[in-house]
């Protein structure tokens, strides 16, 4: 009943308009931020913009092992698909790596390693979707989230990434660690999601 009533009212309102605004034509470049895109190397632009939002790009598994050890994030989850390539070397470096995530133990995982489906250089954004992310919760509940990114999947601009969104029913763009400034405008990281957002670029 509501449906018909709403459409009736909308149609009466728009029919009364003397002129209707046409759909504007515009060049996508109007949305590009020139300073953010400075540079020619996509990985370099991505890493710079990720650092600006307090995220980190790491380029080797050894660097990741070092970071987790130094920050005492010693136990975590790794997508089974990535175990051989990443989980196993981390285990060899002394970290505890599990390939299953149990909801009841959500607080036991200090880090979570999952695959990114892409990234955006312009904004330092990681792209996760349902098909590449083995578990949404494993990319969200641990203090450290490590998104494993193939260098070839970095888009240059936000517009490029939108044009390639794909068909997944759930896609999330992650631009830095979870944060808030609700209390007196003071920036605090790690509200509900990760306090450390890492891109492991391979």
């Amino acid at each position: 009943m509501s449906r018909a009533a709403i459409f009736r009212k909308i149609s009466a309102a728009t029919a009364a308009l003397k002129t209707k605004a046409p759909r504007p034509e515009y060049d996508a470049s109007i949305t590009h931020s020139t300073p953010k895109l400075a540079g020619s190397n996509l990985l370099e632009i991505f890493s710079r913009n990720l650092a600006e939002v307090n995220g980190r790009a790491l380029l080797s598994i050894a660097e990741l092992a070092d970071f987790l050890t130094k920050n005492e994030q010693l136990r975590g989850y790794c997508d089974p698909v990535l175990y051989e390539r990443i989980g196993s070397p981390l285990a060899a470096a002394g970290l505890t790596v599990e390939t299953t995530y149990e909801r009841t133990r959500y607080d036991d995982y200090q880090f979570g390693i999952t695959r990114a489906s892409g990234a955006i250089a312009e904004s330092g954004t990681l792209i996760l979707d349902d098909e590449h992310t083995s578990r949404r919760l494993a990319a969200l509940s641990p203090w450290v989230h490590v998104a494993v990114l193939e260098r070839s999947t970095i888009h240059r601009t936000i517009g490029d990434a939108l044009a390639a969104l794909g068909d997944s029913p759930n896609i999330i763009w992650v631009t830095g660690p979870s944060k808030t400034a609700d209390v007196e405008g003071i920036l605090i990281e790690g509200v509900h999601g990760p306090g450390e957002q890492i891109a492991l670029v391979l």
Partner: protein
Amino acid sequence: MFGTQLIDDYARQIADEKQASVLNGSAAGTEKRYQVLHQDYAQPDALRRLAGSIKDHTLHHLGDYLTQAEHSLTQRGVHVHFAETDEDARQTILTILQQHQVSRLTKSKSMAAEEIHLNPFLIDNGVECLESDLGEFIIQLDDDIPSHIVKPIIHKNRRGIANSFLREGVAEDYNDDPQTITRRARVFLRKKYMDAQACITGANFLCADSGRLVIVTNEGNSRFGMAPAPLHIALVGIEKLIPGEADLAVFLNLLGRSATGQQLTVYTEFINGPRSASQPDGPEQMHVVFLDNGRSSVLASNCREILRCIRCGACQNVCPIYRQASGHAYRSPYGGPIGAVLSPLLFGDRFPEFADLPKASTLCGACNEVCPVNIPIPDLLLRLRDKAKREAVPSPAAIPMAPFALLATSPNLWRSAMSMSKAMNHLPLDVAPIKPLQDWLGQRTLPPSKGGDFRKWMKTRRKPQH
């Protein structure tokens, strides 16, 4: 009191401490937001105008886009509902929850849900409904109402929050360190997310072409709420539509910068269906409830541009009246310039109740300058003042303007009044026993009159030679 606005009376009822928090909180970051937009774009105004014209186009063809969005969502297995009024929306959501025997859920921040008072309704109907945005969570603990669109607890300070945590059992001891407050909320809310049977969200945008709902948060609360929950219900105002995904490049870039000075909000989630078969986390069923609640009437009015609004809060931050009066003085979930336009329109049958709000503005135009969708807010405020005048809504605090109107419409009277006005400089007005005059002068200092000088200058000015 003559010469004051109704909003002043409401503002006076708000504690000084709260007003100070709002004043500081709204002024903070204004410079940063301006710089971020202007550093990143050579022509930010062109981008703002483009965003406004995309929204206008969508609104002028709203029936078509809404039909398209409904079709796109249905194709993807999403259940679509329409709610004409706030009551319809509350009932629709309750019915879905009852069908799934939901007794506890989390909810991420939604202005539409605030507008229809969804929380208290669900709680009265036996559903535990917990706000998961940190600010909204604190509002709920205090049984308070938000006072800013983006910064709901802008009127609170750390001491009050620490006391609320202690009182409500979120914390076992008093600690007002903002980091500790945030960590305690993290621990408390995680248990609730994991235990919830549903998640309710709003939406920032809905793309008609793909049916994709776009939800942005910095905290990740909407993502966390949806990950363990088997049921997702999104409440979406019909004005949230945009034609296509490609247009998001315009809106996402503007929203983050205008709201918080960020290029992009941390989490931008695109959803158009239940979770994928391969994904263990996420809702198995998804519902979208389209909310009208007065929007189609606004579309029919001469203030329809306000429906472009993307709820960034930028106009609140820059408004001198909002900063001084603070959000609660606007008596609606929408405070500041956006509220001064939206509240009298949206709650149509209660127009007289909010008819004073369009006068709570100096028409300085700052709100229009920062608006990411270029809404001509000062023009809309004038149109609403006109509406109040036409509908003869009584204005309890207005200065009697009849004598001025008489002067201003008669050239002869005006001339003699101007030539006499200098004499007023020698009159002891501040002690004259005239009550309305005293009330008026009690709040401002009258500058010395220079009446008549312009006319003299005009007379001596020679006509330009062509």
